[in-house]
């Protein structure tokens, strides 16, 4: 059950007039009496250091069954699905327009800005390949990768799940996401590939074989999908 923030509060009402509330002081409102922080959209937020993210990974790895990355992806997926439902309502209320009849780049930028305010890093989305059935997303300063340091493998499963869940819910089609390049592998930024499960499965296979992000993108553009 997804809880929809209460739109009747004064902080929320302001958001119906202003479309760029992303500076820290606009976006967050703290209540020192209650010890709470609420964002522009009326949602409660809790600020944590990077160590919380490491702690969550450590806690999951403590299960000892190798499922930690999958569980991070699952958390991200659920978060993305819930967020898409709330975002859709919020967008339509704020812009008086159906999300499916909105310029895609505008829609996606509107979606990501709150995450930028919340410290999840900047993003860059490339929709040029969507006719080929995939799109790529770059995240700069992923909080997960920055936290984990250089470990030689992708670590941003929470982000991958978030994108998969959000776009699945938004498009009403089952989509998957994989990180094909990560700051934790020494790259300048993290790159995610989002698409139909067969394409992402092929990309995962090429990645395991040592293909670079660019090689994977080229192969997808040539439609080298195993059938």
């Amino acid at each position: 059950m997804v809880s929809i923030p209460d739109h009747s509060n004064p902080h929320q009402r302001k958001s119906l007039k202003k479309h760029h509330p992303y500076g820290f002081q606009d976006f967050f409102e703290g209540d020192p009496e209650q010890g709470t922080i609420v964002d522009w959209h009326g949602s409660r937020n809790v600020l944590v250091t990077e160590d919380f993210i490491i702690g969550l990974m450590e806690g999951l790895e403590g299960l000892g069954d190798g499922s930690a990355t999958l569980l991070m992806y699952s958390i991200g997926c659920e978060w993305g699905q819930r967020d898409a439902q709330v975002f859709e309502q919020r967008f339509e209320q704020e812009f008086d327009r159906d999300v499916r009849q909105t310029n895609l780049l505008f829609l996606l930028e509107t979606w990501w800005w709150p995450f930028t305010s919340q410290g999840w890093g900047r993003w860059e989305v490339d929709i040029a390949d969507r006719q080929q059935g995939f799109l790529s997303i770059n995240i700069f300063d992923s909080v997960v990768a920055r936290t984990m340091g250089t470990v030689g493998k992708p670590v941003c499963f929470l982000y991958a799940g978030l994108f998969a869940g959000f776009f699945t819910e938004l498009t009403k089609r089952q989509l998957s996401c994989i990180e094909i390049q990560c700051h934790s592998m020494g790259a300048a930024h993290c790159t995610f590939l989002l698409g139909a499960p067969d394409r992402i499965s092929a990309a995962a296979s090429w990645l395991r074989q040592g293909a670079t992000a660019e090689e994977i993108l080229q192969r997808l553009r040539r439609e080298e999908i195993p059938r």
Partner: protein
Amino acid sequence: MTNRISPDPDSAAANTQPYIQGDLDLGWLENHWGDRLVALPELLVQSMYSALGREIGTAAGVVLFNCGRWWGQSLYTQVCQRLASSTQTAIADLSIVELLLFLQQDWVAHGWGRLDLDQTYQPQGFLVVKIWNSPFANQAPAGSFPVCYVEAGLLSSFFSQLTGQELHCVQTTCESLGADCNRFILGSVKRLQSAETMVMHLDHDAILQQLCR
């Protein structure tokens, strides 16, 4: 573009030394001491409980407790560093009241709710911590057990390092179950073992009475 806020607008120190600031060019948040922060929105907290509960059942509580323990270890180190840099004071030299004030400011500034300590049972070897408006209890699904695993883990490792003893932490009341606040009992691992099961059928005061017998 940088924006700053401080938790207490009346505090002169806070006005000159903003507590938390955001940088939209980077998509970063950081606190006054340069630690990178990230805001967990309520939908993420809900998803942590829901996805972990679905995938691993009751082990979710252990995972979140261990997450809190890891986080608490770092928090303790950070608090020590902050005290050393801002007041040239070692944490061991602080009175419990001074430490409480420091922690209360951190709790409020990060949106972790409000915190208080109850030292009534300290002579018997137990410390009670009370947290109001927990962001975790607030978002957890309604169940039949206390659910502030993250805070319990955080408190156990923070106070273990503070006291130099291996302490455990058991939550006895929870806002998710309709309590007025979340109560945690801290004590030695051995003496708190029995409290884990008492939570199922005894209230907070009765548990403390049993433990102090």
